[in-house]
């Protein structure tokens, strides 16, 4: 019995030793047998940690991942992208235990740390390899497409005698003065600032000057923005389509529309970090997120879109321009400073 245990430990150690370098050095999909060994090793690591910056999908991801890998616990740390990347970089520098897989919007960060990301090797790599959704030699991937939207509280609008918003310009309604417009801070995610910039490009800088005069309320991220709209603290809020989903389900008087003047679509990117302390578990999670099963689980609720085609239930997204990538130009950075002055 004891000998049997030793054999199992040795076999596991061999798998770990083999799988580690393979994950670091190769971007070819693993064979079925090899992948089975990685899955086995992952289950022995018991848990895997995902750093996530999108609100509203956490519970679904956990539930669906548990169905796929019942022996592997998915822990999710959710923070705004801006704060998440600071923590990630601190962990990277200290080689501290933390994230295994990251899922956020700042493509600039992924490019910057590409050498510290592990090329994917799971079976799902074949779905992305050579497509416009794979970056940095298969080190990170687009995993979600989301449009920014305008959430509104139906009861508050009714009490104010204001109609349903039809575009960004409806945030400027004078009846929304004194904090009835909710905005995420521009530093919460670079893509947020890029969308603000796109709105300013379309409507002119006067848009945010006028919005500033209404004294909008700024929140650390989209999460509290949408919650405040649901509570009735704000009449309208700048959010993304996935954010109000749970609140709508819970019966909150909240709806949303996707403005097209301009439309702001952005991507969430996913990668395995090289400083992960659970490399096989990280490989398994990354592969699951990229796989069709994972994409169906994540996007099947209808509020977000997959980069893969024909995902049942996924949001039907046809971006009319390139996705916002979170890489800020000098003009956008300067606009950010102006935005602070105008809205605070």
């Amino acid at each position, binding site marked *: 019995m004891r000998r049997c245990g030793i054999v199992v430990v040795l076999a596991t150690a061999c798998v770990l030793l083999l799988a580690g370098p393979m994950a670091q050095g190769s971007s070819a999909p693993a064979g079925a047998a090899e992948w089975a060994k990685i899955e086995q090793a992952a289950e022995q690591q018991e848990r895997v940690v995902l750093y996530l910056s999108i609100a509203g999908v956490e519970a679904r991801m956990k539930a669906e991942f548990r169905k796929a890998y019942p022996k592997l*616990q998915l822990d999710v740390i959710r*923070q705004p992208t801006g704060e998440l990347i*600071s923590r990630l970089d*601190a962990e990277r520098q200290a080689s501290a235990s*933390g994230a295994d897989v990251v899922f956020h919007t700042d493509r600039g960060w992924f490019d910057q740390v590409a050498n510290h990301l592990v090329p994917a090797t799971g079976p799902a790599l074949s779905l992305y390899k050579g497509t416009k959704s794979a970056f940095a030699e298969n080190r990170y991937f687009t995993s979600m497409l989301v449009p920014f939207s305008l959430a509104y509280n139906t009861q508050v609008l009714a009490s104010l005698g204001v109609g349903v918003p039809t575009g960004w310009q409806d945030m400027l309604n004078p009846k929304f003065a004194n904090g009835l417009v909710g905005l995420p801070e521009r530093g919460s995610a670079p893509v947020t600032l890029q969308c603000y910039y796109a709105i300013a490009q379309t409507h002119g800088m006067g848009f945010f000057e006028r919005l500033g005069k209404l004294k909008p309320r700024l929140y650390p991220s989209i999460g509290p*923005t949408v*919650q405040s709209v*649901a509570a009735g603290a704000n009449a309208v809020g700048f959010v993304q389509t996935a954010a109000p989903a749970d609140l709508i389900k819970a*019966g909150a008087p909240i709806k949303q529309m996707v403005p097209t003047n301009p439309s702001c679509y952005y991507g969430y990117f996913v990668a395995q970090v090289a400083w992960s302390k659970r490399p096989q578990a990280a490989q398994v999670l990354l592969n699951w997120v990229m796989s069709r099963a994972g994409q169906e689980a994540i996007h099947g609720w209808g509020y977000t879109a997959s980069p893969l085609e024909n995902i049942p239930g996924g949001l039907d997204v046809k971006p009319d321009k390139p996705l916002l990538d979170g890489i800020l130009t000098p003009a956008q950075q300067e606009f950010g400073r102006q935005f602070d002055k105008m809205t*605070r």
Partner: protein
Amino acid sequence: MFSRLRSSHLFIIPLTVIVLWPLVMLASRAFADGGAGFRDMLALPNIGQTVAHTIGLAMGSVIIAVLIGSGLAWCVSNSPQRTRSWIGLLPLLPLIVPAVAGVTGWIFLLEPRTGYLNQLLRQLPWWNHLLQGPLDIYTMPWIIILTGFTLSGFVYLYVRSSMQTLGTELEAAARVHGASPLRTFFTVTLPLMRAAIVYSAGVAFLLGIGQFTAPLLLGRTRGINVLTTEMYYATIAFPVKYGLGAALGAPLIIAGIVVVVLQFLAIGEQSRYVVVTGQSRHAEARGYWFCPLPIAAFFLLAGVLPLSALVLVALSPYWSGTIRWSTLGFENFAKVLSEPNALRALRTSAIAIGVALLIVVPLGFFAAALMTGAFRAGPLVRRLVDFLITLPLGMPAAIFGFAVLYTYAGPPLVLYGTITIIIIAYVTLMIPHAVRPQLTTMMSIGKEYAEASRVHGGGWWRTLGVIQIPLARNGVAVASALVIVMLFHEFAASMMVRAAHTQVMGTLLYEYYTGGLYPDVAVVALLMVVVTAACVFAALLVGGTKALES
């Protein structure tokens, strides 16, 4: 030469490393690179406004805290005799509510549009035309008021304690000679309380200038920053802006030193405030009937109201200004308590507090023993120990958190993302609080028993085990309870040293808050209140009502 090196000298080394080293490192970082940190600080947008907010918050909250705290102490002292013992505890009970939980509760009460209290106020005839307000929690005045509420409990403790020492004979004499209550207060009570008020105002100023919780939770939505929140933003930048954070902390360190010196100058010779008193207890037996009313109002405002709001939101499916009684339930409690992140935060809190307790209480015991002379030490050593254990009281917790992060996060120790760095911050912050109750107990015991033991051949360890520890067990128990409660409340330093994976309860609450998970925020806040109340109850069982005052 080494024979002169006593254990008391060796004791100073870890104390210096724990307390002084991070501050020295931080100060040196502020001036590194030709003062680049200060240049970055001056380049911050609205830095003038940030400094003005910091000073305004400190001054404003001190005024409110001194007025409320002193008023409450006077009211308790002048309440009818039969109610005085229990009514004296009421102003302390809101201290059970951690600041982070209290502020969250007030958000649910005073959010301009959906706040429960605001909605009630809009029912009044003169405000029923308003669609929001009349009060707005996300403003500087309310940040000051709520901070003042929090600090008034500390002022109350100092002033009440002073009043109990002074007695009430002089007030009684003034009243016998025809002075009105108001005149007695201004001509007799107030001058006698000057020392306590000045001292407590100094402590409140230091706490106010280092305030972090209310400005972070309330100020962020309107861009209202203070120095400590700017320091926090320096820690979440990449790379962490240590130079900027150190420069931002420098004025707070200087303010701490200045206030301590000013306090000393203002109070001067303590003996000037001594009253010859014999039977003060029965001198003011009657009291005024109206005195319990402001105390009850404070208890209601500072404790009951925010807690009620937290309970309502915790039971609601989502935060809403409209309470639907049929939808209330315990689902959020079940959800939070089954969340791995919440359980991990609870575990991290328990480990960090537990280990910090095991380090800081014995450390406090030895410091107290040295200062009372129970263990032999020269006057210089005693003075140095006194200085080192007092220093953390003069510095905002955010400063120590930032200093610990700077000193230990990177090489050579690389403690970022570990519980160890949280423990180091906790130990540093808790040294004064671990020493004080043990010092009081040891002073009441005296050093004669220890000397007798030694005279009769008892060695150092034997004296410690058989005499010192058993006699001081009450102080040890109270110090332990105090440390547990204060660390469970701790927020500012934890925010600086936590990583995404090493959250404690307070930082988890903030995590939920920034994620917009308001019912979960309320659940965590209530959990913190329950745990704190349990610790206070345990302290009361061990040390009686004096433990609560400690």
